[in-house]
């Protein structure tokens, strides 16, 4: 009986892990209205203001750093810190509609959240 339980547990765990990994690393996926969490694979860093210029459907881009949120809002020609988008940093992008992000050539992103 304990072996049977252990087997069921292992199967569920394997299934769930597969699901999580597949769903959280959807490369270059369509981004949905609302909150999206992405990481970029950049050849050259760029300013968030440029990202919004290329993608005017973006409402807000933000990231967390040392228990603070640094953000840039697509309002009044841009409100907030015009920070640099970098590799290995998770960003929250809030969109007003479905888009595929327009990025500089060679730049890729990973949509981390379903």
């Amino acid at each position, binding site marked *: 009986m304990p072996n049977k339980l252990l087997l069921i547990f292992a199967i569920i765990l394997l299934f769930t*892990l597969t699901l999580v990994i597949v769903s959280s690393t959807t490369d270059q996926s369509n981004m949905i209205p609302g909150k999206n*969490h992405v990481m970029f694979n950049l050849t050259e860093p760029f300013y968030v203001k440029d990202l919004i210029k290329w993608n005017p459907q973006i409402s807000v881009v933000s990231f967390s750093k040392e228990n603070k949120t640094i*953000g840039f809002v697509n*309002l009044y020609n841009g409100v*907030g810190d015009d920070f640099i988008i970098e590799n290995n940093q*998770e960003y929250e992008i809030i969109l007003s509609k479905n888009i595929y992000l327009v990025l500089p050539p060679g730049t890729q992103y990973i949509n981390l959240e379903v």
Partner: protein
Amino acid sequence: MTKTFFISLIFLIIFISFLIPGVSAAHYIIGFVNNANDGTSANGHSIVLWNPSKGINDNKTDIIGETGNSGTDNLYMIDCELLNNSCKIGDTLNLKVHNNGDYHVSNNVSVTITGAGYDIAPNITLGSLFNITMVSVDDDITSPPNEIDLFTATNRTVTCSAIINDSEGVGIKNATARFFDNISSSFSQGDNGNLHYSNNSCYINSSYGINESLILCNFQVAYYANSTYWNCTMSITDNNNATKNGSSHSFINPLLSIQVNDTLDFGSFNGVGVSPEVVLNVTNYGNVKINLSLYGYGMYIDDGNAMNCSSAKNISIMYEKYNLTTTNPGNLNLGSFESKYINLTSNSVVNNFNLGFRTDNNFNIAIKSTYWRIYLPSGISGSCSGNIVFGASQLAGI
């Protein structure tokens, strides 16, 4: 079996939650703060956001303008998800500019959290501080203005007044004032009848006008307060604890006033001769150093007599004499009488007396003695009486 399965499932969910990468989340509240009506810039002031249902202790702040999160003049930007009780769709949050030391604050505004990427709060206008206008200080005789005439040997009410224009309607909480000699004293000095007066509870008429208050600060100013320019500085505090000062000047006029307590009674004596010395004390009840003017008459001014007598003959003015500095007790012959005393005259003469004014808050020791004798010539009999007129003068004496 079922129980074991669910326990395993819960364990699994906890395990999975550790596998999912840490997710940042933000929901910005953005708003515009207009400069104050008095011209004070909103930039650099601090704005606070809180959820009233959770209490103001759970709050987030931002600096308005370029040095804050927004990086833009007059704008602020606060992530409400950083509240300890993170904001959720439908929450109503409050915002206000709070006091960062200059007492410019604002009224609260509210914003409701939506599902959009951010929310824009209603515009806020930075509050203005109240203005102190029409500060004046005077006695109840307002013409000529800014001149104060003290009363002899008592106090005079001096009123320092101002009108407060409180356009934000914050309300005035407290008003104090200091009235002080602008040359020899200062705002912070302790009280002293010559130099400094305090009123820590001025009258506030909050219904004086629309958003206007009348402030009245009374001082009971003593007769010996220095004759010079005086400053009244009012310190007004509103209900936000903002404090402003306003001041005005006025001149306390010289008060020349003396009191001579006693009648001059040479007593009774027989025959020709010089009377014993009689002492008369003169007290300064003014606020300036004085000399003494003196003249005398028997029955009528300028009648040439010191005393009018019931006999046919009167005592001539030249026979009544004084010394304003030195006593000469005992019997005197006529020669000493002539040399040690000065003739009283029918016309007023100003004599050096140098009697200072009161400088002690508890006692008036501005008192000096004068010494008098009279010569009784032959032919005088019966009773005699006369008048000596004492006057205080700032003129140079002889």
